[in-house]
């Protein structure tokens, strides 16, 4: 009977803590549901629904007749007929077009003045007024369409008039522009998919959050932290075990999330140009080394933040706010699209978003940028870990209540 044990074959304490945290979490239905089902599925499904809604509406609008209230149709029957052939649905005139557009009872009003026929017949520019509200986001494509319709009619009539006077209409087109858009199909898709890096990060955040809270603030709340810290184990080992468990759940969630996105990629409207999505096995393989250090940083930060809280609920509040942090670079990138540059890789979270966007655009990865991102992110994670360790070495955290 003595206190001396053969410690040679004993498992490293960090590994003991890691295994216990994983086992305990796997037994909790809430964790499983959050980290391994809802987290990875929620964002891809949200994404799928959004894309279908946007694309569906655009398609619908492109094909459907465009309702326009026409005032003074009798002054320009040919014009109205021409527009109708191009897809305009003529609506009866309204009394006060400006007010009607403002209160959105009609989308477009075409006003033809009584002088129209006079000017038209004399070959002078005949004026029509188009009244609409350009601040309405949902009318954006309809406005373009209507303006194109009017332009088409005007060009055709113009050409006919020139021909009638024996002049080649091509004289009016001294320069012809042939458009050769160099955007890869993926790059056009990436405009729509700008939120994807954030969605992936959100998946990683959700995956590790529960465990990060449960193993820190939860442990304090349940009064099991004090007995744990009395064991003859350096606190760095205990924290390391918790960090590894959180990172593993976070990573699993992320991998499942990427696989779900891959599946969703097949469900997107396939022939729609601009929606080709470079998420596949190649993307997952390339994204993993980019995201792995970030997942470690996220886990370290979650554990750090949650360690300040005395209860599960308090920690949840803190971490809920912390989830908005990676949203900042995402919004920035969407508002001000930037060329990926090397210095960006040196900023954790931002760097990964830029790199992932780059990959999503189907472009070749930059090894140097990725390497810089890995090193800087891991160093930051180590820094956060040291901060947390200092917290755990203080008497304030060790004593519950």
């Amino acid at each position, binding site marked *: 009977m003595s206190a001396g044990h053969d410690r040679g074959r004993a498992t490293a304490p960090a590994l003991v803590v890691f295994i*216990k945290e994983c086992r305990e979490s796997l*037994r909790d239905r809430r964790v499983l549901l959050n980290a391994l089902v809802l987290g990875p599925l929620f964002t891809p499904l949200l994404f799928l629904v959004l894309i279908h809604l946007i694309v569906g509406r655009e398609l619908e609008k492109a094909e459907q007749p465009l309702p326009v209230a026409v005032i003074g149709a009798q002054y320009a029957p040919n014009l109205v007929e021409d527009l109708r052939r191009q897809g305009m649905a003529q609506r009866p005139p309204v009394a006060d077009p400006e007010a009607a557009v403002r209160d959105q009872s009609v989308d477009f009003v075409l006003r033809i003045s009584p002088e129209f026929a006079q000017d038209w017949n004399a070959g002078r520019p005949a004026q029509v007024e188009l009244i609409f509200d350009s601040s309405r986001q949902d009318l954006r494509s309809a406005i373009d369409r209507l303006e194109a319709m009017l332009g088409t009619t005007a060009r055709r009539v113009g050409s006919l008039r020139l021909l009638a006077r024996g002049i080649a209409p091509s004289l009016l087109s001294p320069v012809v522009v042939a458009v050769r858009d160099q955007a890869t199909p993926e790059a056009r898709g990436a405009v729509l998919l700008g939120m994807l890096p954030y969605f992936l990060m959100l998946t990683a955040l959700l995956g590790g959050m529960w465990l990060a809270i449960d193993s820190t603030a939860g442990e304090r709340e349940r009064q099991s932290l004090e007995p744990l810290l009395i064991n003859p184990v350096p606190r760095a080992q205990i924290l390391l075990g918790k960090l590894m468990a959180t990172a593993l759940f976070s990573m699993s969630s992320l991998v499942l999330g990427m696989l779900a996105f891959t599946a969703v990629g097949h469900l997107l409207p396939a022939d729609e140009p601009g929606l080709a999505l470079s998420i596949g096995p190649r993307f997952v393989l390339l994204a993993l080394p980019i995201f792995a250090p970030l997942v470690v940083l996220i886990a370290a930060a979650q554990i750090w933040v949650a360690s300040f809280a005395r209860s599960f609920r308090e920690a949840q509040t803190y971490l809920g706010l912390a989830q908005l942090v990676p949203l900042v670079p995402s919004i920035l990138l969407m508002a001000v699209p930037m060329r990926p540059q090397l210095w960006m890789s040196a900023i954790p979270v931002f760097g990964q978003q830029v790199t992932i966007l780059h990959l999503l655009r189907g472009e070749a990865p930059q090894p140097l940028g990725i390497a810089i991102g890995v090193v800087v992110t891991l160093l930051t994670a180590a820094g956060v870990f040291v901060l947390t360790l200092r917290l755990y070495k203080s008497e304030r955290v060790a004593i519950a209540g």
Partner: protein
Amino acid sequence: MIEVRDLVKSFGSVKAVAGVSFTARDGQITGLLGPNGAGKTTTLRMLYTLMRPDSGQIRVDGIDAAADPMAVRRRLGVLPDARGLYKRLTARENIRYFAQLQGLDAQQARARSDELIAALDMAALADRRTEGFSQGERVKTAIARALVHDPRNIVLDEPANGLDVMSTRGLREVLRGLRAEGRCVLMSTHIMQEVAVLCDRIVIIAHGRVVADGTPDELREQSGQTNVEEAFMKIIGASALQGLA
């Protein structure tokens, strides 16, 4: 053996422990008796190296706690004030977790937890998740967890708190068993009957100081009272008056 010399600890301007000294010997149960807020828990927390004393010295089996806290922790089995279990783990898994953190390998951890489960009569509940355990079952599991590395010295903070009569009797049996094995048992309590029936030596603490230290008989003699409760009241009362003076 646990030796405590001139322990002092302040929280801000409040002096929680103001010079506590005592010795808990092997083969004895030593009771740290005192009213709530007397500084018992803080003294024990310094003893098991969760807190650092402002001044004073702690030795466990001759090892200085300030110099080698890890060695001291290996020689102590502790039932702290906070005794939370992991509710999604079974009692056996809770015990084994601490065994492995104490440095036992997987096989030793399994053997030792089986041994304790048998010794503490926990076979019926060992493989149930601890969620929904009664207070007595929780304390039993926490005690098994504290004893898993076979420590020479056992420190218990208010072990009988929240226990019913049956569980309290069971606890006494466990502590007497540990004493019979020659271990050093140190427990804090504010319940007089506990120390009276169990302890070989009583250290009375009030206002962060030791106000009496001796066997139950010596304390009765010192205070001129025939039962321990009266002796306790007299000693505490005298010290309280001193504190006022």
